[in-house]
């Protein structure tokens, strides 16, 4: 058989290139070139690492913000120390400069012995007092601020990842069914989406959270069990995150469903799908082999770019007291703490620490999303 156009032998180097040239690898190569995104990826990995290993950080001298004590000391300043030895800093009279007193202190080998009422300039290191506690101060319950920030990363990441995953899975399935089957099904499904789209998302989420809180209170008062009781308990064990996931999930899949449907519609009529139909490929094969691999990339990009939104929503809800349950460390709740007891001017860093954590995390996801977008679809660059 005569070998024609394009069949010229290719060099060894070219052959090697071609082996690694698959669309996913190409995307990674493009991504790697984007410095900001690579840095963002590094920061996110670092935050994930810190969040996952949060326990370790509390064990090297910081007090577990969740109320557990440092194992070595078996001391829990929250429980052991008599309540009145902790004058509530929030209630304490302001000093003559109008500043709120703020707690700093450290642990010795024996116990938590020294609690000082400072304005949270860091306590001086002292050779005999080995471990700092409350490096960045503590809240009105005496819980360490740095530790709370570290545990707050767990909440933010969980909300971001679970929110994105739920929204992606639900939206993808919904949108693909709608777009793939089309016609009446599509019409009905999309009218429902339009209807849901009409709700102001945040108001809807707030109302849901209020509803959940009320239900929880009622159940607690009546001491009932059952499935609802089980769910309420589970939510409690999760520090209120379960209801947050649900509230975030109920609305956020909608935008994803629209995008997924749009992408399915644009690919469904592509000729390679028709070619697959012409050889007799099943719907299942067309969906999973031809449509999904093509639409999943852009959707992952969109979801990555949506993660900062989920993190902010959680922070906002926790700030207004409708997010995580009291006692669960969350950046939004920490910022709210500042509001509740003052210290906005006197102890700026207590506001800055969770705020900066929030900003760094959300910015990193934004840059990551940008990089992914450029990598998956270079034509979309700059949009």
């Amino acid at each position, binding site marked *: 058989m005569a070998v024609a*156009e394009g*069949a010229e032998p290719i060099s060894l180097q070219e052959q090697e290139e071609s082996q690694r040239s698959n669309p996913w690898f190409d995307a990674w190569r493009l991504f790697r070139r984007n410095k900001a995104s690579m840095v963002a990826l590094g920061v996110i990995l670092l935050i994930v690492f810190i969040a996952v290993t949060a326990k370790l950080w509390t064990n090297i001298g910081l007090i577990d913000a969740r109320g557990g004590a440092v194992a070595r000391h078996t001391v829990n300043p929250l429980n052991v120390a008599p309540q009145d030895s902790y004058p509530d800093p929030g209630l304490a009279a302001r000093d003559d400069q109008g500043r709120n007193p703020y707690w700093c202190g450290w642990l010795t080998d024996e116990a938590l012995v020294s609690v000082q009422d400072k304005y949270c300039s860091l306590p001086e290191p002292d050779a005999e007092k080995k471990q700092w506690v409350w490096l960045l101060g503590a809240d009105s319950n005496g819980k360490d601020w740095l530790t709370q920030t570290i545990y707050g990363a767990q909440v933010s990441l969980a909300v971001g990842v679970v929110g994105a995953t739920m929204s992606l899975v639900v939206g993808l399935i919904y949108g693909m069914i709608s777009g793939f089957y089309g016609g009446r099904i599509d019409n009905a499904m999309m009218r429902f989406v339009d209807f849901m789209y009409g709700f102001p998302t945040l108001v809807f989420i707030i109302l849901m959270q209020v509803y959940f809180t009320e239900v929880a209170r009622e159940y607690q008062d009546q001491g009932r069990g059952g499935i609802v009781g089980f769910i309420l308990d589970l939510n409690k064990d999760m520090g209120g995150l379960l209801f947050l996931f649900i509230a975030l999930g109920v609305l956020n899949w909608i935008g994803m469903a629209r995008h997924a449907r749009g992408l399915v519609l644009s690919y469904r009529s592509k000729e390679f799908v028709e070619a697959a139909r012409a050889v007799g490929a099943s719907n299942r094969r067309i969906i999973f082999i031809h449509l999904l691999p093509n639409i999943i990339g852009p959707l992952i990009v969109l979801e990555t770019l949506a993660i900062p939104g989920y993190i902010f929503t959680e922070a906002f809800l926790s700030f207004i007291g409708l997010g995580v349950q009291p006692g669960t460390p969350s950046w939004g709740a920490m910022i709210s703490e500042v509001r509740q007891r003052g210290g906005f001017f006197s102890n700026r860093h207590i506001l800055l620490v969770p705020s900066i954590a929030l900003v760094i995390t959300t910015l990193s996801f934004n840059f990551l999303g940008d990089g992914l977008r450029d990598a998956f679809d270079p034509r979309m660059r700059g949009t």
Partner: protein
Amino acid sequence: MNQPMSDTQADQVTGTTPATDRKILVEVKGLKKYFPIKSGILFQREVAAVKAVDNVSFHIYEGETLGLVGESGCGKSTTGRTILQLYEATAGSIKFQGQEITNLKGAQLRKMRREMQMIFQDPYASLNPRMSVGRIVAEPLVVHNIGTKQEREDRVAELLELVGLNPYFVRRYPHEFSGGQRQRIGLARALALNPEFIVADEPISALDVSIQAQVVNLMQKLQETLGLTYLFIAHDLSMVRHLCDRVAVMYLGKIVEIAESEELYTNPLHPYTQALLSAVPVPDPVVEEKRQRIILKGDVPSPINPPTGCNFNTRCPVSVDMCYQEDPGLIEVQPEHWVACHRVD
């Protein structure tokens, strides 16, 4: 002079057409494909229909190439796709090797699909960008569960060689290939199941002129070696002449003229065919000098509301009263030369 062909007569007339004893592979009778236009927010009603293919009858002989020519939007692709059962026919009959295929379902339809394949116009949209060339070409084999993995790989290599590509390309992805190479890959995929019949939907329209000839030559060579039958769709007459045995000209969902290639070029009867031909440059400079383009007035009417009577009447330079009242059926004015025009006698 034959009688004009009405809807009901279509059967008899095309049925008796073949004067020769060539075997008919594909026979299309009274084929209609309407796309409904729906409207309404909650409960959609059908408010109108795009009459993409409106009562079309023709046949394709075994081993020949039938050209299907017409302006874009006249229903050529829809005709090809409906024959391949990619669209469900609104009405009419399609017979393949004498078997009615419009009512096939499930396993029978899948079996039929092995005999008929398609190659596409857009070399960029016709290959899945997330699949390697090897997977693309092997897909028909996988779908029909043919052979072991090794046998499939061998077959893919064989197919790539057959269409003039280096079998080493199996691990590459479509974006690494030129338009012409992609068309070859599409051709290899179409040939994987050893089909009898291939619908080629403007396979060269999107290619550089220099590469068009290569692909056409390849298609011709494959036709000789594999005994293929083609329905070759094109939007102008220039490429079709030396490739096709017979040519059908389509206008607004209907076939207006069918004839053997040479006959159509030398003796076009329908005013629309004449206009199309007048747009084809002639290589002979003397003839080219004298060539007069017939510019049709106006635009193609909407296939939602085609004109009554002859649907070419809005643009026809020679229309008379009758053209606005009666739809001229296809009539056989000479053996194997059919035309749908009141003014031809």
